[in-house]
């Protein structure tokens, strides 16, 4: 491994001077985040056959009950029931398939009968010309969620989707994955009792779209838990899940906007709020000293503006970036957390999809937009956690940490991370994003500010329509859009690339992956290779120098 990483460094930038051989800015021995490459994980999930898939939802041991039993709390929360339930799932699924699959005639009937009505609605202004549609339906074909328009009127379309999926499963013993035209991709994902579909005219690859659908599924699981979701559909195949998901639609809406704009999803990494090393240490200490006596506390997470400030965890347990993204999305989408301390059940699908953690969620103070989440397995711990929160807030205020957080959020001009490109001083670099692979953290040249966050929250200014806009100056989001193709090529399962250097009259983009990091840089057009190599070298050194500030370099526990 060491030798390959050395090769890579030589092969890419840094030729004459070798000091950046071991340069892996942000790397540290222990990570708070589970750095499992989500792309690898995804690839193995996607390569399983129909039979394997039906089994895959069967019992996984519950992390939550593991924690509970460790703590000595014998209350098992019905986890035994769960495992038997999910293996039943297989049978009930097969049952419903044979019920619905009456060969191709079904499709034709569906097509003919409901075609006119369906066509009309899909051509209506609220649905036509959207960049990306997302539909979620039950495996019985009942609409659950549509990103645009009214699900009720989409029953016909959902029927067609359900028929397509089940015909391919039933007649061909196969799994429907995608349909594409020159300008449009439709991807299908069957997860447990749900069918998720994205119809997209964006430049995202099929894999990126399926990952987004997986997020949407996880968002639903996070509200219901997988156990409950499976149980509902076992009991009533025709259940209208919308009744249980009211309120969660908004979460899914926001999640898609978030995923389309934030490169964190593209890279499977978490953004950290850049803070002076000392300040972050103080914050972490404030949390550990306050919470180390609370036995059932699993995670204490402080976030601000979709960025992680710190995460303190129970020993042995780490969080997956995608769970943190769901927490970001939850906090960002819920105005109510701002006004009062909340006590809410949260299921983190990667951590444990079968049960709820209980979360105390509150903003640190009125003058600081940082939100503290205290996640426990104890369902009646509100008061001790509320008490802890106030102690933490007080400590943070006293140690001036709130000021530090606010400075970073407001992008105080004096901070080097506020405008990294200016601070690095390489004028040819227009934009970059960097992911440290071992810690699953990323840094980009456009840190999120509060007003940017506001922009995220304003639901989709363009309304998701496809617009041809004249490009005068690329926004940060445009840069990230341009990286999508490079990301998908780098992470392609069959033909991955280690390095891509592409230059055309508009810009020059370098994508480079080593064992330690992924780096994407946009330069001026027709950039000279020598210059690009030198610039990347300087950029890496800068990141290395600032790594303590822009990354979380330790993995604190209670």
């Amino acid at each position: 491994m060491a030798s390959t990483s050395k090769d890579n460094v030589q092969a890419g930038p840094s030729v004459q001077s070798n000091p950046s051989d071991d340069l892996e800015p942000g790397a540290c021995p222990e990570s708070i985040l589970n750095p499992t490459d989500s792309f690898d994980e995804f690839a193995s999930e996607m390569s399983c056959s129909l039979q394997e898939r039906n089994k895959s939802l069967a019992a996984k041991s519950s992390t939550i009950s593991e924690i509970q039993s460790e703590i000595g709390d014998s209350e098992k929360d019905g986890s035994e029931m769960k495992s038997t339930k999910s293996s039943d799932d297989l049978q009930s699924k097969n049952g419903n398939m044979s019920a619905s699959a009456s060969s191709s005639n079904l499709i034709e009937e569906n097509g003919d009968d409901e075609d006119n009505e369906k066509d009309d609605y899909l051509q209506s202004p609220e649905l036509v010309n959207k960049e990306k549609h997302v539909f979620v339906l039950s495996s019985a074909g009942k609409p659950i969620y549509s990103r645009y328009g009214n699900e009720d009127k989409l029953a016909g379309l959902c029927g067609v989707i359900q028929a397509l999926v089940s015909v391919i499963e039933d007649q061909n013993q196969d799994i429907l994955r995608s349909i594409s035209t020159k300008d449009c991709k439709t991807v299908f994902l069957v997860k447990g009792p749900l069918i998720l579909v994205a119809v997209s005219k964006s430049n995202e690859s099929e894999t990126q779209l399926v990952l987004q659908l997986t997020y949407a599924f996880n968002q639903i699981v996070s509200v219901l838990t997988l156990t409950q979701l499976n149980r509902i559909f076992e009991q009533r195949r025709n259940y209208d899940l919308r009744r249980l998901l009211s309120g969660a639609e908004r979460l899914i809406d926001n999640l898609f906007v978030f995923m389309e704009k934030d490169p964190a999803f593209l890279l499977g990494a978490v953004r950290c709020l850049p803070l002076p090393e000392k300040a972050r240490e103080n914050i972490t200490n404030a949390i550990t000293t306050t919470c180390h006596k609370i036995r059932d506390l699993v995670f204490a997470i402080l976030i601000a503006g979709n960025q992680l400030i710190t995460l303190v965890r129970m020993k042995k347990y780490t969080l997956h970036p995608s769970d943190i993204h769901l927490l970001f999305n939850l906090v960002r989408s819920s105005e109510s957390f701002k006004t009062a301390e909340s006590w809410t059940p949260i299921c983190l699908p990667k951590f444990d999809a079968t049960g709820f953690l209980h979360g105390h969620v509150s903003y640190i103070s009125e003058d600081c937009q940082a939100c503290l989440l205290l996640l426990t397995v104890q369902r009646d711990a509100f008061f001790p956690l509320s008490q802890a929160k106030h102690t933490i807030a007080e400590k943070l205020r006293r140690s001036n940490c709130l000021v530090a957080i606010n400075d970073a959020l407001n992008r105080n001009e004096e901070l080097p991370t506020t405008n990294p490109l200016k601070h690095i001083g390489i004028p040819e670099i227009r934009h970059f994003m960097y992911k440290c692979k071992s810690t699953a953290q990323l840094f980009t040249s456009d840190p999120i500010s509060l007003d940017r966050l506001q922009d995220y929250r304003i639901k989709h200014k363009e309304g998701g329509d496809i617009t041809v806009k004249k490009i005068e100056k690329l926004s940060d989001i445009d840069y990230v859009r341009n990286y999508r193709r490079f990301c998908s090529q780098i992470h392609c399962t069959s033909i991955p690339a280690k390095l891509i250097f592409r230059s055309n009259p508009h810009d020059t983009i370098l994508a480079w992956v080593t064992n330690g990091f992924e780096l994407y840089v946009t330069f001026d057009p027709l950039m000279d290779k020598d210059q690009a190599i030198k610039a990347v070298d300087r950029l890496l050194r800068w990141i290395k120098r600032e790594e303590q500030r822009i990354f979380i370099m330790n993995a604190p526990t209670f």
Partner: protein
Amino acid sequence: MIDVKTKINSFFIFNSSFGPREGEEIKRVLFFHPNQISSDARKIQVGLCEAVVKFMSTFTSEPCEALQTQTKRYIFYQPEKGYWMVLVVRIPYTTKAVSAIGEGRAEFLDPSVMNDLLVSAYKMFRMFMGPFKDIPIEEIYSTCDEFFAPFIMSRNLTNDISDVIQGISYLPLDKNCFFKVMCFIDLLEVNYPDFKCISFVYNDQLIWNGLSSNDMLTLYQYLVQTLLPKQVEKEIQGGAIAAAQRHGRFISPPEGIRTQDDLRKLVKVHLLREDETETKQYYLIIYRTLSATVCFTIDVNTHLEIDTFRSLDAFIGPQLSTIASTISEQCAIHALQTAQLANTEHKFVYFNRLNLAFKTYPPVNKLIPSTSIKPEVLSIIAGIHADKKSLGNYGEVIIKTPDEYWITGKSSNDREFYVVIQEKNANLKEISDEVKRICEAQMKGIFFYPM
């Protein structure tokens, strides 16, 4: 070489407007390969494809191109409104890095190759049979069967650069030599005004073309991939070589043209000539001497006399064999020069979208499949080739794979140049310098920017 019989799951053509009533669905299926599939199974496959096409049409006006399942890829092509050609290939949804699976090497085919196969199948069909819509409904089933059954069986999909980028190999000639070819063609067209020379091919390289470039590619592929290999085989085996071959003979129709009866066997084709504005039907006559092959067209309404062909034979025979020998001398000299020049161990491909000119090193030979370029690398080249937009009018992309291959693609207006270099411990700058050297040595006078 990949055997289509194992790789291609099925291939079918359908039109939903045939057999609109329930119970008549089977009429929609114009052709189905393999033919032992039951009609119920055919109906199911076609029904699925119809549903998929319809489903996508609710979201976009672009026609459906592909359906991917876990184990197969369905490739759709709608050459004429309502007529769908579907090729079903076993390509799994996710493939682990091909290099990891040793034997997977030959298994890997880029989907774009499959799409090109459909397009060229249709174009070949249209050349010999005309467009689908002009074929009477009672004949269309047998016509499709007659054409596509042998076509799909004879198709060998090789993992070859010439399958990824379909072009025409031109033969470079010096001025005098080219002038001789031109004079020959002019003289012939003046003396036999009904005949129009549409192509002059030496071995498998094109010297003169009188068709629109689209049709030229089809005719060229027909000559080089189907007709000429058979012919060469005959010549190698055969007694007939001696006198007949020196003075040349008609090779289409295959038995030659000797009697008035043979004239009825002339092949009809639908072609667009360079100097005309619409596709017309012609007789296609192909004449061959030594390694030179000349194609003519005659309007189908022309009254044909066997004497004309006899005198044409007498006229072309000696002239063409002289020209063919001159060209062969030229080629020998040229081969010697390039042998000295081409001391590069790197592989490259040049392609010009405007005239479809195509040149590779090492040279491609259809008869000996080259394993010189790895399938993964081919796939990357296919990707660059397909995504012309990302390089713009002029641009460059360099991609490094985990096994130390560097693939460079350059584009300048409609010209493309690809170089494959395998080099450990190289860096970006060294690779780009090497590519520049190859470009200057091999592509003299063709300008690529950025340098």
